[in-house]
């Protein structure tokens, strides 16, 4: 059964917890208290809901993908997070956390970003609420998501390239953590996914569950057979899964299979990983026999992460959700099919969810599948144009 909240140590079953340097523990305690107080109070929740409605544009539509459904023989409903302000679900969490930072009296926020969507969302929220913003981004990701780097600059954020490791999302998280250890008295770290030490996985899920709650309402009681979402750290997936967990629909998380699971070049932490500790939390991760964390690979920067949120590890372990994967090639084909049948260019991340449906279309024939279309693909167009040249 799903857990409304983790236990006192921040655990979802055997996953989660707080493996962080002592310097950060008091800040994590302060954050947990501030979140708990704010989230149970009308003033904060009221403001959060108003900002989501009037500024972010919620509720996002639930779109019946008619031509795609016809093509695949599967009824497909798209939860259009790509239509949220800044083009992805990331803004739901960024607004909530930047509001908390403001209420805690912290004048500066930092963020990590992979695809750039969380960086843009945090830069946007910081501009809206008048806070300073620094974003850490791996240099490989800066190259493949150049458009988002420019957007963050326009929004007044400073983007710091991260050169350590493979220069992708994992390294950006580590660098943001290091910044926070130094600046914790004046800075809040807006983690972009349901990862990190407690209370982050729980708090980010709470800020993202609006996706699933809206979808439930929009479905007016007609539950789908499946709810599908891509999983990197897993914030869009937990956001749509959590309200549906226990109601009947089969929950399917789609991880990045990259060049194929057997190639070793992938981001399938649940599918091919083992339990361990990364970035402050106990979860499934890609690691060797000595506990050294391996580099992930995915064509999509947002899924290029060797860990996953601890609540997903718990969902997998307890059978609440099932985790599958889709390759780079399958994701590209899915992106193209959605563009041509529905006139929607999805983010490469979200295309992984569509890719799973395409592969399983025969088994899913006649069923109804709700997909979290977590973001739009504008950011990926330049990378794809370069690839096809």
């Amino acid at each position: 059964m799903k857990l409304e909240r983790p236990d006192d140590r921040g655990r979802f079953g055997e996953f989660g917890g707080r493996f962080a340097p002592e310097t950060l523990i008091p800040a994590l305690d302060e954050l947990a208290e501030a979140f708990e107080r704010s989230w149970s109070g009308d003033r904060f929740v009221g403001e959060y809901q108003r900002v989501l409605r009037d500024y972010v544009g919620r509720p996002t539509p639930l779109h019946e993908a008619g031509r795609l459904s016809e093509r695949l023989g599967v009824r497909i409903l798209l939860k259009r997070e790509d239509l949220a302000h800044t083009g992805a679900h990331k803004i739901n969490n960024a607004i909530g956390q930047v509001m908390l930072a403001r209420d805690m009296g912290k004048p500066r926020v930092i963020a990590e970003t992979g695809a750039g969507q969380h960086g843009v969302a945090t830069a946007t929220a910081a501009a809206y609420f008048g806070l300073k913003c620094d974003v850490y981004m791996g240099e490989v990701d800066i190259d493949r998501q150049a458009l988002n780097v420019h957007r963050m600059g326009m929004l007044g954020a400073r983007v710091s390239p991260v050169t350590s490791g493979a220069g992708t999302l994992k390294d950006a998280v580590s660098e943001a953590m290091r910044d926070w250890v130094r600046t914790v008295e004046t800075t809040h770290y807006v983690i972009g996914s349901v990862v990190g030490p407690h209370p982050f996985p729980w708090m980010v899920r709470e800020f993202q569950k609006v996706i699933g709650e809206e979808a439930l309402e929009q479905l007016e009681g007609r539950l789908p057979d499946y709810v599908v979402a891509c999983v990197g750290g897993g914030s869009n997936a937990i956001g749509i899964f959590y309200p549906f967990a226990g109601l009947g629909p089969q929950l399917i998380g789609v991880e990045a299979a990259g060049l194929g699971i057997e190639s070793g070049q992938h981001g399938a932490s649940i599918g091919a990983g083992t339990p361990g500790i990364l970035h402050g939390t106990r979860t499934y991760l890609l690691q060797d026999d000595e506990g050294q964390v391996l580099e992930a690979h995915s064509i999509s920067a947002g899924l290029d992460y060797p860990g996953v949120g601890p609540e997903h590890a718990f969902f997998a372990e307890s059978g609440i959700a099932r985790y599958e994967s889709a390759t780079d090639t399958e994701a590209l084909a899915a992106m193209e099919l959605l563009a041509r049948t529905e006139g929607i260019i999805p983010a490469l991340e979200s295309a992984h969810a569509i890719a799973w449906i395409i592969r399983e279309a025969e088994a899913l024939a006649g069923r109804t599948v709700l997909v979290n279309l977590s973001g739009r693909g504008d950011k990926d167009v330049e990378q794809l144009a370069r690839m096809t040249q």
Partner: protein
Amino acid sequence: MSRFRLERLFAEVRSSGRTALLPFMTAGLPSVSTSVDLFVAMADSGADGFEVGIPYSDPMMDGPTIQAANRRALAGGVTVEKGLEVVAAVVERTGKPVIVMTYANPIFRIGAAIFAERCREAGASGVIVADLPLEEAAAIQDPIEATGLGMVLFAAPTSSNARLEAIAAANPVFIYGIADLGVTGERRGSSSHARELAARIRTVTGLPLVMGVGISTPDQARSLAGEADGIIVGSALVRRVLEAPDEQAALDAVRNAVVELAGALR
């Protein structure tokens, strides 16, 4: 009891009213074959004991210098086993107390009890885990102490007095006082936090106190000499190894730096 060497050191520095110098160095630097020689050279230059780093891929508490050392050691093939071979040789050749430092994931991956047993076999006195706060400590502290080694716990400038009391109550072999906000690395001035934290810890507990993070120069070490039982210097020494054109130069540079630091604490 392997922690004996460490307890003996703290008893000695307290009775003579001095502060111990405990250099940090990543195992396998400048190379796997010369790593032990580097520690022997530091022992001959006035080091009282060592913190030996087992490299980890994602060292969240470390700045650029020690990150680079981790990468170099891993690329050079330093496994946990090889790191502990260095520890065993350093204990044997110097007779000084050695504390093994790493992150939680390699320990849990191997199994905390197995890791503890291997540290004991290597003759280590204690274990430091950079990303293990008090709330998560028992899973490693219990097996470490069961083998007769000591667990080191951290206290930070941000830790409240109530937390300091809880940390002391867990009875670590010493408290690692984080002398400055931020990750490991060299700093220009002296931290404004270090003295305040040391004083707060002293009012809470009589446990041995070792200060580290951001202490890199003889002046910085001297300014904390009366405040703690020991001082850890890491990045300043690691940088000298990484910058040295060859292994002999690395040995010479580190030897000189340790002589100066030890002199500053006398």
